[in-house]
C-alpha cells in the first residue's frame, strides 16, 4: 500500500509542483502581480474591471455603471454618456458570463465603497444570467474575491487548479514570460486577447478578430432559423427565476433604491437566440420587482433581430443595436446613429 501511495504521490506530485512553480513565476492570469490594464489577456474580465475601478475611481469618480457580460460590448459607454448629464462618469463593470449574483455582488460592493451609482444599465443576456452561483471555478469566470467574499488564497487555488489542468497553457506562459508572445488561455473561449479595452471606462473596443470566429454563412443560417421561431416557443420555454433569484433581484433593487439610481434592466436581443427563451413568467417577475417602466425586453423587437449583420455571432451584437436600445430607453433621437458597425 505504501509503495502504491508513494507512486501516486510522485506521479501526481511532480507535475503539480512544476505547475505551481510556473504559476508563481509566470502569473498566468495576471492576478499575483500588480494589475496592469495593458496586460490582461488571460485575466478574467471581472477581475480586470474590479481592479481598474479600484485604480481609477479616485480620479474619475465613476457614477454610471453598465453591468453585464461580453454582450455589453454592444453598449458603448461613450454613446450612453451622451444620454446622461455631463456629471455622469461611465464605467463598464462587466464579467465573463455575468450572473445576477455577480451583479448583486458588484452593486453591494460599490455601495460599501461609498461609490455613487447614479445611473445604471443591467444587461440580461443569456439564461445563465439567472444563477445563484456565488463563486466561479473557471479561470475566466471566477468571482473576484473582493466582491464574493471568498478568501483570496482560495481564489488563487482555483486559478492554480485551472492552470494545472491546461498543460499546453504552461508552455504558452513560458513563451510569454520569456519572449512576450501572447496567446489566449483557452481557444474555445473569447478571451481578452480578442478585445482591446479602454483603460479608463473599461469599454470594449471593436472586437475585430471575433468576427473571424463566426462566418457570415453561419450567422445567416442561424438567424434565419431563429427568426422562424414563434412567440409560442417563448411561452413554451421554462421559467428560470426561482424564489432565491427573486430575492437576489430584490437585493439589487434595494441598493439602487438606496442610491436613488436611475436604472434600466435590459433583456438584450441576443437572449432570444439562446435556449431557453425568456419565459413570460420571468418577464413578469422582473417587471414586478423593478417596475414595468424600468424593464426593457428587446427580444421580440423585429427591428433588432432581423439583420444578422448586427451580430458578430449568435450572442454578440454590435453598437448599432446598442444605439437603438438607448434610443428606445431614453426616448431621444438627438444622438446620431453610429455610421458603421464594427466590422
Amino acid at each position, binding site marked *: *500500500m505504501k*509503495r*502504491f501511495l508513494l*507512486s*501516486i504521490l510522485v*506521479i501526481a506530485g511532480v*507535475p503539480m509542483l512544476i505547475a505551481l512553480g510556473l504559476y508563481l513565476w509566470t502569473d498566468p492570469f495576471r492576478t499575483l502581480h500588480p494589475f496592469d490594464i495593458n496586460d490582461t489577456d488571460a485575466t478574467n474580465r471581472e477581475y480586470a474591471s474590479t481592479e481598474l475601478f479600484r485604480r481609477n475611481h479616485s480620479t474619475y469618480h465613476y457614477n454610471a455603471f453598465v453591468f453585464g457580460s461580453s454582450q455589453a460590448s454592444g453598449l458603448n459607454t461613450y454613446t450612453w454618456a451622451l444620454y446622461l448629464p455631463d456629471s455622469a462618469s461611465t464605467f463598464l463593470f462587466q464579467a465573463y458570463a455575468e450572473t445576477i449574483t455577480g451583479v448583486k455582488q458588484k452593486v453591494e460592493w460599490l455601495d460599501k465603497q461609498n461609490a455613487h451609482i447614479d445611473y445604471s444599465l443591467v444587461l440580461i443576456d443569456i439564461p445563465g444570467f439567472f444563477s445563484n452561483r456565488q463563486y466561479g471555478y473557471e479561470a475566466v469566470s471566477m468571482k473576484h474575491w473582493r466582491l464574493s467574499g471568498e478568501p483570496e488564497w482560495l481564489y488563487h487555488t482555483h486559478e492554480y487548479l485551472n492552470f494545472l*489542468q*491546461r*498543460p*499546453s497553457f504552461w508552455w504558452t506562459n513560458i513563451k510569454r514570460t520569456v519572449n512576450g508572445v501572447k496567446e489566449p488561455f483557452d481557444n474555445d473561449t473569447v478571451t481578452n486577447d480578442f478585445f482591446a479595452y479602454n483603460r479608463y471606462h473599461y469599454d470594449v473596443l471593436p472586437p475585430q478578430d471575433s468576427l473571424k470566429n463566426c462566418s457570415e454563412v453561419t450567422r445567416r443560417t442561424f438567424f434565419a432559423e431563429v427568426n422562424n421561431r414563434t412567440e409560442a416557443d417563448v411561452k413554451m420555454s421554462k421559467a428560470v427565476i426561482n424564489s432565491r433569484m427573486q430575492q437576489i433581484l430584490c437585493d439589487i433593487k434595494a441598493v439602487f433604491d438606496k442610491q436613488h439610481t436611475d436604472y434600466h434592466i435590459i433583456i438584450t436581443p441576443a437572449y432570444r437566440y439562446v435556449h431557453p427563451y425568456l419565459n413570460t413568467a420571468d418577464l413578469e417577475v422582473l417587471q414586478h420587482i423593478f417596475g414595468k417602466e424600468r424593464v426593457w425586453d428587446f427580444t421580440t423587437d423585429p427591428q433588432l433581430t432581423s439583420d444578422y449583420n448586427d451580430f458578430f455571432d449568435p450572442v454578440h451584437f454590435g453598437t448599432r443595436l446598442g444605439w437603438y436600445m438607448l434610443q428606445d430607453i431614453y426616448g431621444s433621437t438627438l444622438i446620431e446613429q453610429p455610421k458603421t458597425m464594427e466590422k
Partner: protein
Amino acid sequence: MIFNSLPFLLFFTVVFFLYWFVGEKNVKVQNWILLLANCFFYGYASLKMLPVILIATLLFYYIGLKIEHAYDNPDSEQAEKTGSRWTTFGIVIGVGVLLYFKYFNFFIESFISLFSLFGLQSNWHTLHIIMPLGISFFTFRLLAYVLDVNHGKQHAETDFVRFAVYVSFFPCILSGPIDRPQFIKQLGKLRVFRFETAQDAVYQFLWGLFKKVVIADNCASYVDAAWNNIDGSDASTLCLAAFLYAFELYADFSGYSDMAIAVGKGLGLKITDNFRTPFFALNIADFWRRWHISLTQWMTDYVFMPLNLSFRKNGKAGIIMAIIINFLIVGMWHGDSWIFALYGLYHGLLFVPLILSGAFYQMPKIQVYEHLNLPKPKDFGRILLTFLLVTLGFILFRADSLTHFAQYLTSMCKMSLFTMPLVRSALTRTLLFTLIMIVVEWLLRDKPHPFAVQNHPLACRIIYIYVLIFCILEYAGDAQSFIYFQF
C-alpha cells in the same frame, strides 16, 4: 456522480482509505464500508429511488433463502414445487419491477396507438413514473441470483450485507457490467491490497477515461451535429457520423466499463469483463461474444439456452427462433421504444446465415501475418463487413423512430456521398485519437484488458500515464453523460 468528476474522486478517495486502512483486517468491516459506499453513491444519484433498490434487495434476499430452504430436503416431492414457486415469484417480482418502471408507459402508449389505428379511443393514461437509476442492471443481478439458487449453481446468501453489496456495487450499479452471483464469493474472503493489481487498475482507469472524454465526447459533437441536421448534411458527412457513432458508443460504454472494472480492482474485487475488442469481430456471433459481454452472457444463460432447449426438436429453425426472441429482448432491454426491438430483430436476423451455414457455434480466430501483426486479407474483409453491419445497426440504435432511421439512411444514400464530408473543429484530432485507440487495442488484443501494460518498462509506463493525462486534460470533448446511463 460520474467517474470523471471531482465528487467521485473525493468519494472514492475516502472509500479507498477507509476500506484499506479501517477494514484492512476484517472482511465484515470491508463489506460494511462497501455497503455504505453503495448507499451513498446511489443516494447521491437518486435519493428518492434508494428505497426501491433497498426493498428489492431485501425481498430477493428473503426469496433466495426460501428457495434454498425448500431444497433442504431434496428427496421430498414438495421441494421442487416449493423451490419453483419461490423462483417464479422472484422472477415475477423482478420482471414486474422492470416492466412497471421501465415499460409501463410504453405499453400504454402502444395500446393507445394501436386502438387509434382502428379508430377506437381508450381512456387509458400514462403515469408519471420516475425510473430508478440502473434498474436494468440491478434487476438482472437479482434475477440471475434467484435462478442460480434455484438451479443449485449458487447457495443462497445468508449474510445480508454481502448480498446487498453484490446487488448495489457502486462501480457497476449505473451502467454495468452485470455481475453474476458468483461475485458474492469474493465478498466472503478478506481482500488483501496488491500493488500490481492497483497499478493495473490505474492504467485501466486512465484508458477508460481517455476513451470516454477524448474519443466518445469528441465523436459526440460531430455525431450530434449530423443527427440534428440530417436534411442539411451531405451524405458523406452522415456516413462519417455513422462510423463515428459506432466509435462513440464503444468508447463511451467500454470506457465506463473499464473505469468500473478498475475501481473494482482498486478495492480488490474482480468485476466481469464487458468488452473484448468488439470491432475486430469476424462475424456477428463473434461480435456479441465481445460486445456487452455481461449482458450477452446473461441472456445466453437465462433466455437463449432455455429457449433453444425448448425448440430443439425444430432443428435450425428452433435455433433461429430462440436467437430472434433472445435478441428482441436484448433490444428491448435497452429502452422503451419499438426502435430498440427493431435493433434487436436486426441483430437476430444477422445470425440467420451463420446458423444455416453451421458457423454459429464456431469460435473464429483472426488469422494474422505473424511478422507484420496484421490480419490476413480474408479476415480483414470479414472484420470490415462485420463492422459495417454493426454500424448500420447503430444507426437504428441512435434513431428516435423508424421514420428517423429511414430519413438518415436515405439521406446517406445520395450522390453527395462522394463529396468531402464536413470538417468541423476537432474532427482531425477525433479521427486521430480514434485511430490510436484502434491501434492500441489491436496490439493489446490478447491481453486481459485493452491497456494491460504492466509488463512494459517502467519508463514507458510513466510516459503512457502522462500522455493519457495530457490528452484527457487538453483534448477532452464537451462533457456528455454516459450513453448507457439511460438504460
